[in-house]
Every structure is written in C-alpha cells, then in structure tokens.
C-alpha cells in the first residue's frame, strides 16, 4: 500500500483537522494528533508573538528521517508533520504531528517520540518577542551526527 506520510513547512495557518485526516488509512483504528501552539507565558514572561525560521531543505530532510525511524521503531501506519514558519501570534498552531496506527498505544508513543526528536534535530529556530525585547531560543540537547 502506498505510504500516506507527509512532511511540510507552512507559511500560513495550519488546518489541524485536515492534517489528522490525511494520515488515516483503512486498517487503522486511532490517530494521535499533537497541536503545538504559541504559549503566552513562559517562565513568567509574556510573549507578544513568535518568529520561526528554518534551514528549509535540511529541515525537510530531518523530518523525513524522523518519519523513517518512527516506522522502524513503532507499529504505526502513517505520519504527517507540518511546521509553521514566520510570524505567529499567541495561540496559533506552530506544529502539527499526526500519527495513525492500528492501535492507539503505538500512536501515542510515536507522536511523543516524534515531537521530542523534532525539537532536538530539525533545524528550526524560534525567536520570542517580548514587550521589552526579543530573544532567539536555543535548544538544550546535543545532536550527534549519524
């Protein structure tokens, strides 16, 4: 059966429902969808808006690698990942990850693994714009080359 995986970078608002529906194949019983969105308060500081930038071709390659690895490690059928770039307002969706699987347990586990790895390896950066300044956020985890 042809894979219905997809991975995209978007510059306009992401339609969560359509991402979730695109991954659904007939043999599946559950789709787990993560809706990551812009938080208003981080450690007590108020965010006015965010700006996301990517090294786009490498980001897409890394997303594709994550999908390949997830298929090896979890009993899942299809994966969709869409990450937004550019300026995002508080509450807007920055990332959607949908994982369809025959059974929900594998879908939850794969979705959690995918967002954790995306935040560690996919070359996308977030700038927080506050009332009194702005700051590029730096990730905390090491990336060991393969």
């Amino acid at each position, binding site marked *: 059966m042809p894979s219905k995986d997809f991975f995209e970078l978007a510059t306009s608002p992401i339609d969560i429902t359509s991402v979730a529906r695109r991954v659904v194949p007939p043999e599946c019983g559950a789709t787990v969808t993560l809706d990551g969105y812009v938080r208003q308060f981080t450690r007590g500081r108020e965010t006015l808006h965010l700006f996301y930038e990517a090294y786009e071709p490498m980001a897409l390659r890394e997303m594709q690698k994550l999908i390949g690895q997830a298929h090896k490690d979890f009993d899942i059928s299809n994966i969709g990942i869409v990450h937004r770039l550019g300026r995002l307002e508080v509450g807007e969706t920055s990332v959607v990850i949908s994982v369809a699987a025959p059974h929900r347990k594998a879908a939850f586990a794969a979705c959690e693994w995918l967002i954790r790895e995306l935040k560690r390896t996919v070359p996308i950066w977030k700038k927080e714009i506050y009332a009194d300044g702005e700051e590029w956020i730096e990730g905390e985890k090491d*990336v060991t080359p393969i």
Partner: protein
Amino acid sequence: MIKALFFGLTADLIGSRSTDLDLKDHATPANVLEHLVAAYPELAPHRILIAVNEEYVYADTVLHDGDELAFFSAVSGG
C-alpha cells in the same frame, strides 16, 4: 569555494546570512568556526551546531570544494 550559511541567532550575531569562503586543502568546519569566533566574539558563549550539505557533521570533518556549510545555534522548533 565553499558557501557558508548562517541562521537565526548566528545570522543576527554575524550580521549576514551567507558568505563564500576560499579555504585551504583539508580545512574543517572547526577552522572556519575559529575564525568566525575571532571576528565575532559574541558567538563564543553559544553552542554552535554544524551541517555540511544539509547533514549534521563533527567539527573535524574535512571540507571539499562546493560544499554547503551551515552554522547555527541549538535548534528550538516545535
């Protein structure tokens, strides 16, 4: 000739998004980064990740003519 790309924080600190470099044979990203940090000391406190041709590499990877080298801070998507 090697193209070096900068993103996010590194682009802001260097004040540029890309530059072309003429390097000696057997040059590595570590050599380039050393020059960058000397020219832009603001980079020093940050952990800089390195990619060559859109793949993460170690700093001692030997560069080749035509490579696309990228320097960026630890990623923060999601």
